[in-house]
């Protein structure tokens, strides 16, 4: 799974994890979603929901989204629909400005990390990975 992320904690945690390629970009949440759409246009299929988590898009800065490692034969219209809808939701929330304090960046990163970890766990459960360390989320208990 290719994980597009703007969350440094995800890079740190999964950069050498088998079967996961972390593509870290230091961009805004909106920009990250647009990058994901570019990948979808280039025939990658979404593997995780772009609106993961209940922290609303205007209350966080971080997002990690899983896509197929390789492009597929055809453009996945469902993925395209989902990412388009998600971008429009993110933009809709962005109209309500919320101040996100520096001291909460770590917490927001942690929450995003656990959300993508739960997807990586699902991936690992579906395809056992040789020599995989124990489940992602169980190792996240302390920051």
């Amino acid at each position, binding site marked *: 799974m290719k994980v597009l992320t703007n969350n440094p904690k995800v890079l740190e945690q999964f950069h050498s994890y088998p079967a996961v390629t972390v593509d870290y970009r230091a961009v805004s949440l909106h920009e990250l979603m647009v990058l994901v759409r570019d990948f979808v246009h280039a025939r990658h299929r*979404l*593997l*995780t*929901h772009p*609106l*993961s*988590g*209940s*922290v*609303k*898009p205007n*209350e966080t800065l971080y997002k990690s989204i*899983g896509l197929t490692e390789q492009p597929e034969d055809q453009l996945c219209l469902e993925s395209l629909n*989902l990412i388009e*809808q*998600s971008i*429009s*939701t993110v933009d*809709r*929330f962005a*109209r*309500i*400005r*919320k*101040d*996100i*304090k520096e*001291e*909460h960046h770590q*917490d*927001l990163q*942690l*929450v995003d990390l*656990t*959300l*993508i*970890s*739960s*997807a990586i*766990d*699902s*991936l690992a459960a*579906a395809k056992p990975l040789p020599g995989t360390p124990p489940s992602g*989320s169980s190792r*996240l*208990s*302390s*920051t």
Partner: protein
Amino acid sequence: MRLELGYIHITDIRFGDASKVEDGVLYVNAEEVEALVLRDERITSVKVDMARPGESVRITPVKDVIEPRVKVEGPGGMFPGVISPVDTVGSGKTHVLKGAAVVTTGTIVGFQEGILDMSGVGADYTPFSKTNNLVLVIIPRKGLGSHEHEHAVREAGLKTAVYLGELARELTPDSTEVFETLPLTEGVKQFPDLPRVGYVQMLQSQGLLHDTYVYGVDAKRILPTLMSPTEVMDGAIISGNCVSACDKNPTYVHQNNPIVHDLFARHGKDLNFAAMIITNENVYLADKIRSSDWTSNLCAFLSLDGVIISEEGFGNPDTDLMMNCRKITDKGIKTVVITDEYAGQDGASQSLADAHESADALVTGGNANQVVTLPRMDKIIGSEEYVGIIAGGWDQNKHEDGTITVEIQAITGATSEVGFAHLSAR
């Protein structure tokens, strides 16, 4: 399964030398509660406080709300697989301290937990302004990780609720209510002419602060499965969900699941409440497809005529909601879905992140972006420090006169997606 709930009506809560219930008053020995909570070495200190309906009190940030109950007859104990050993619950007799609740507060991550006002306009939006609340303000050991912190606070609340519930064991209930569902074939024979109705409950299951546990199992890891609706009344489902105060289901709401209760109210009269199915809302898209396939197949296996589907959360779960609704409808089963809305502060935006035409019968818990100004409260339990940053709050929302302006998504239980509240929108 047949479960009798015996209600002991609680009209007041007070500190006392001995914890007991007398004439509808719940007396609590604070030292005993403290000692119980501090048995967990992850917790450094706990402050035990109280809040009664109508008082000028604000509790924030609220993590969970739990109803004190005790199992007096039948297998198992309260919160099986978590506090009591794993055993199937939902039959026999259970006593309930109706009108009392345990409220936990704790800043697990520096944002996101709810506001609970006992009076004023905010009280209209939360169902827990009507309960007599024992509040635990929990301070964890320094350096404790977020997962462990959440776990410690969750357990402290449940243990305290069990401790209070025990006080009801020997009491004679003020009123009782019986809930019974029969096994499949017997149920069909019992009400051959009534439509067979099921309840599909979607459980929040996305990760830290977004988890729900079923008999102690993380709901992320379940396949959709069948339950007797009475099992939830004995605490088979508990909340580990701290994000989105307005539409998460606190443990109290699982124990008192209003859809279960309102379906039982018509059971044998207008419908045959045949089954409850629980499913999840995972981040991984393949999980969603599998879970919604499985859920719709279960509905078809059970020959259901109609299904109510409830959601928990916004965004990612909207996709699960629409998948479930579409696939169940495709089986020829009539559906009603319950959700809430994020239509912007002006109400002019699209309400949901996903939509499908099969969701043509929808009940809403209201627009969570609606802005409300809450009055100054004489007493704050917990800390208002986080009001500016919890979901639905923003920095300029504290005014000089002590009032605060928030979106109602900051208020615990305001837009319940299992229909526990009265709020709606048009």
